[in-house]
């Protein structure tokens, strides 16, 4: 007995979450996930309050409750808060909390990255909130169409708040995406092959890939627009060879996948709940997985349906119209898989199922109006009217909020170990459901009656008065419903009755642990045999990683496909670095906001230093090279070449690649479409210099490859020499790039030159990061942290060089060779 107690005390010590100020150092995914969700909840309330202001203003015609300026700020912030500060962070928080528990891991693969992402989200959100308090909130609509959001038509600091604040928040989204992606692929427990993963995990896997690819276009767009506003660079200004439609493309290239990024995790909740309450496994597991993958894929090919009225060619319209409707197929497959599951099971009804039912009604209708909107002639009529407002609330509230509440009620016993109040929960549901439909069903007709969206007032007598009043009343009814649910959630932790173990008889792994779960999730990591581990009597027959006396936080590293254990991953523990680095970036964001550029430059350098220091401390600071004793015949991750860090780097490079592709898209788009785009007589760039950069980067990548080949044979002798050479090459390449940047570029006069500048700066940034990483690695080799016995960091830095080499050659092709061969210079 006492031995068990010691074991438990050891575990608690290793996975300890400090309190007080040191709570800022916590990295545990459960804590970070809950912080995401609670912060998201606060922002939801802010967004809801803003919505109520909108409904108050529109309740009656010609109301002067708010001025147009304030109203514009309110609806812009309502959209911004709900999309960027509530919907995605909330779902990512849920995923961060649930995923390790569902796949049998003790934490996510990069716990500190999660904490860093949270603080970026929090600080970015606070910066945006500050703009509301100062009455300087963005006022150009949540998609910030330029030129309305440009420095000419929005001269104040309002748009800067949006561009900087939202970009900052997006860092959190992307880091969470990378973290979830790698965790799902690499940290599943023994035996959990891809085909045995719970459906929710599949949904999150697809979502995180979409986040990695989907957010960079908007990050690029925001950077370009901010550069245009603050630095006068020409990207979107027609007169200087830019095009405002480029912003719309970049925005919706992000914006449409974003809708599915929000919907898919919520649909994952539905796919989790329905089999549990139908008491049978899901019908068509493979079909659902395929549908989710297809949705993710198609969602990147239909952004133009937000732009049917900008006057694009008919063929393109037909293409995007068909693509938009096509997404109905995977959605219908999921809906009918759920129906069939209910049909084939012995369903029981409970509070979460009430919300699932609400989801079904609302979402099916929203999906159908979505198909209508995909039809181009109808779109021309109702685009930018209240019909669209109604449609998107049907798909977002129906597709995200209802499933979210269902999921929260479902997992509540796991979060707190207590049950919700069915009575309050039922009231809350019906008020929300009735209020929601009153508000938004009627709003379809308001739009058809001709009311555009985003008008701060309207005149009486157009038939809009009564529908608007109904919508406003409905909005307040829904508010009461939300309050009811919140009261239930807040009070149940105290008054709710204690939950039995696995109260819903669910089959996924998270229900096999204690509720509320310990910070290390599982005492012993089990071997999973099928998709129903918590119904599996043999679950505990084979277990992993029982020992924590070594004081390390560890989880299993698995083969990405078969789920078989391959290594033991040593996870980093609590740390100040994430908080400190996020704080530095927040300071950078604020200094850019107040346009204190010398200060910003200083803080930017400081941030690079802090991030490097973090990466330094994160690595192993003592040479480790021991093999684990029995009964864990697994190597530690740092003794091999295939570490989670390599996967994380690759995912980050995918995100960067998406940013780069958006940049290339911008270049070719402006070239072919911008009305006043101009090529100068000759290319402003010295091609021999760029060719030199390409060759140097290739040489560096080649050297890394050779040293890696040697390392694999256990020969680390050449490591210091090679790294010295690569670092030197890197420095020369950076110097060459800086020389290249001294070309006579008219960046404020011609979009052509401004785009070239941004691309070269991007290349310089990557070359710089790769060089810096090489230098740091050199030092670690000298100290013995990296060696033939602990080589895992070498392939990581090699990836940086391979990527830099790739973009350098592409830039040579795209900026010089291709235009030359086209004869435009």
């Amino acid at each position, binding site marked *: 007995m006492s031995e068990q107690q010691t074991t438990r005390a050891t575990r608690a010590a290793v996975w300890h979450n400090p309190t007080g100020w040191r709570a800022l150092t916590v990295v545990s995914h459960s804590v970070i996930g809950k912080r995401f969700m609670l912060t998201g909840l606060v922002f939801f309330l802010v967004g809801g309050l803003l919505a109520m202001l909108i409904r108050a203003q529109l309740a009656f015609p010609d109301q002067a409750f708010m001025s147009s300026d304030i109203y514009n700020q309110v609806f812009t912030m309502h959209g911004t808060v709900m999309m960027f500060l509530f919907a995605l962070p909330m779902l990512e928080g849920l995923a961060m909390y649930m995923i390790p528990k569902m796949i049998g891991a003790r934490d996510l693969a990069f716990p500190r990255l999660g904490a860093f992402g949270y603080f970026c989200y929090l600080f970015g959100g606070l910066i945006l909130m500050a703009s509301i308090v100062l009455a300087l909130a963005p006022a150009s609509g949540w998609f910030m169409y330029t030129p*309305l959001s440009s420095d000419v038509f929005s001269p104040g600091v309002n748009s800067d708040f949006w561009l900087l604040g939202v970009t900052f928040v997006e860092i959190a989204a992307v880091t969470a995406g990378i973290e979830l992606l790698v965790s799902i692929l690499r940290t599943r427990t023994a035996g959990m092959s891809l085909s045995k993963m719970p459906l929710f995990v599949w949904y999150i896997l697809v979502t995180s890939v979409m986040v990695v690819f989907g957010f960079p276009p908007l990050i690029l767009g925001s950077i370009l627009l901010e550069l245009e506003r603050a630095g006068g660079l020409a990207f979107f200004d027609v007169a200087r060879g830019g095009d405002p*439609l480029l912003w719309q493309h970049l925005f919706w290239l992000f914006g449409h996948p974003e809708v599915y990024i929000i919907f898919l995790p919520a649909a994952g909740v539905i796919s989790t709940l329905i089999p549990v309450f139908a008491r049978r496994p899901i019908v068509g597991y493979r079909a659902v997985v395929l549908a989710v993958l297809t949705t993710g894929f198609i969602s990147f090919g239909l952004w133009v349906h937000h732009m049917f009225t900008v006057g694009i060619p*008919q063929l393109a319209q037909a293409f995007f119209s*068909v693509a938009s409707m096509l997404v109905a197929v995977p959605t*219908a*497959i999921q809906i009918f898989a759920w129906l*069939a599951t209910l*049909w084939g099971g012995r369903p029981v009804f409970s509070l979460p199922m009430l919300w699932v039912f609400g989801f079904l009604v609302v979402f099916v209708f929203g999906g159908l109006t979505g198909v209508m909107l995909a039809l181009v002639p109808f779109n021309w009529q109702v685009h930018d009217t209240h019909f669209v407002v109604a449609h998107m609330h049907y798909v977002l509230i129906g597709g995200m909020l209802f499933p979210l509440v269902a999921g929260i009620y479902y997992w509540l016993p796991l979060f707190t170990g207590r049950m919700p109040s069915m009575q309050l929960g039922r009231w809350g549901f019906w008020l929300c459901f009735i209020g929601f439909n009153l508000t938004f069903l009627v709003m379809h007709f308001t739009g058809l009656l*001709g009311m555009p969206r985003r008008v701060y007032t309207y005149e009486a007598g157009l038939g809009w*008065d009564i529908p608007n009043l109904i919508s406003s009343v409905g909005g307040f009814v829904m508010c009461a419903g939300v309050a009811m649910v919140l009261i239930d959630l807040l009070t149940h932790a105290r008054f709710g009755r204690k939950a039995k173990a696995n109260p819903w008889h669910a089959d996924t792994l998270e229900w096999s642990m204690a509720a509320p779960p310990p910070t290390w999730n599982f005492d012993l990591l089990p071997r999973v045999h099928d998709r129903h581990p918590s119904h599996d009597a043999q679950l505990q027959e084979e277990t992993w990683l029982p020992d924590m006396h070594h004081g390390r936080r560890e989880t299993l590293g698995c083969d990405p496909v078969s789920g078989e254990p391959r290594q033991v991953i040593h996870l980093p523990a609590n740390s100040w670095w994430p908080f400190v680095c996020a704080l530095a970036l927040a300071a950078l964001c604020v200094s850019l906001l107040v346009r204190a550029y010398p200060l910003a430059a200083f803080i930017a350098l400081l941030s690079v230093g802090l991030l490097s220091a973090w990466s330094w401390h994160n690595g192993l600071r003592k040479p480790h090279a021991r093999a684990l004793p029995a009964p864990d015949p697994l190597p530690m991750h740092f003794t091999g070449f295939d570490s989670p860090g390599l996967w994380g780097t690759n995912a980050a490079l995918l995100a960067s690649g998406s940013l780069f592709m958006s940049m290339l898209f911008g270049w070719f788009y402006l070239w072919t479409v911008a009305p006043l785009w101009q090529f100068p007589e000759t290319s402003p760039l010295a091609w021999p210099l760029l060719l030199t950069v390409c060759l140097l980067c290739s040489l560096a990548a080649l050297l890394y490859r050779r040293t890696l080949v040697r390392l694999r044979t256990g020969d680390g002798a050449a490591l210091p020499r090679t790294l010295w050479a690569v670092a030197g090459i890197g420095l020369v390449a950076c110097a060459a790039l800086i020389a290249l940047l001294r070309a006579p570029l008219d960046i404020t006069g011609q979009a052509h030159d401004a785009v070239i500048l941004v691309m070269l700066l991007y290349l310089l940034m990557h070359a710089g990061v790769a060089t810096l990483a090489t230098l740091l690695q050199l030092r670690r080799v000298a100290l013995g942290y990296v060696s033939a016995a602990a080589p895992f960091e070498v392939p990581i830095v090699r990836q940086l060089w391979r990527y830099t080499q790739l973009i350098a050659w592409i830039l040579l092709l795209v900026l010089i060779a291709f235009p030359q061969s086209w004869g435009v210079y």
Partner: protein
Amino acid sequence: MHPLRDKPRVGLFTFAVTAVALLSGCEGSQSALQPAGPAAQDIALLWWWMLGTSAVIVFAVVGLWLYAQFRRPPPASSEQPAPEQAGMRHTAAVDRIIARRWLIGGGLILPTVTMVVLLAFGIPMGHRMLPLPLPEAPLRIEVTGHQWWWEVHYPEQGITTANQIHIPAGRPVDFHLASADVIHAFWVPQLGGKLDMIPGRTNVLRLQADAPGRFRGQCAEFCGLQHARMRFTVEALPEEAFAQWVAARQADEARPVRDAGAPSAQVFEAHCSQCHSVAGTPATGGPDLRHLHSRTLLGAGTLRHDGDGLQRWLREHQHLKPGNHMPAHDHLDDDTLSALVDWLRRQQ
């Protein structure tokens, strides 16, 4: 109290019934459900069909769901196995059959058939709305969006006016849409869909009114502070009436400034002429005032142009339409403004 609040209140469920009343209302309607031209007619018809089909699908899916959830359990359930084992009774073969029936029927066939039907109607319909070449070239009207008003130019007739567009009924009109500042969208719901006005581009929208009438339009793309008060009207006239209207406007265009020596002319020169033109004086930024007397609304649909409307507009426009780009005239006393209004009225 709003100057235009004098029309009947219309409820959601009575809009169809009150269509006639609204059509006869003097400012016209803005409802896409009261189509008055071929494009809008097609779209409205499309809507009612889509609504009907969607309603059937929603009721079917929800009905199936409710039945599946609440149907009486089959008799075998009397010795219902423990929930943990319940799911295991289903063999892979049974699963495959169920999956095939539901997923292929509902997941593949239903949406595909719906889509094919929809596109079979929708794509040709959209094609018909495009400004394709016609044997007889349609009337060309160039509309330029400004923050927050509409510049209307008839290049063939040599007329430039603002916010109120006159067209002949019964034949197609091509609107060439451009923008002077930010993105706007030109939309007359009773006649057809909308099209954006984008800086640096010209988009062409073809509309037609089947019969004479007055139709409201409004900017549909958010364009800043007074997006809500960027309204306009389209008045479709019988062929002869349209010809008369054109002739009258051409006379306006050719007319010299009257009372050029009056003190008000100097007031106009000092305070208005930089942006507004009378009789072709060079000015940019504001609406041309040569045809002001023929316009029934002021401030892009903010205020009725009758009685003391113009005077009120000049005095209170920053209150009536806050943020509009015309500077306030607080420093001009009432007498000066009255004289200016009289002088402007004499310019017809």
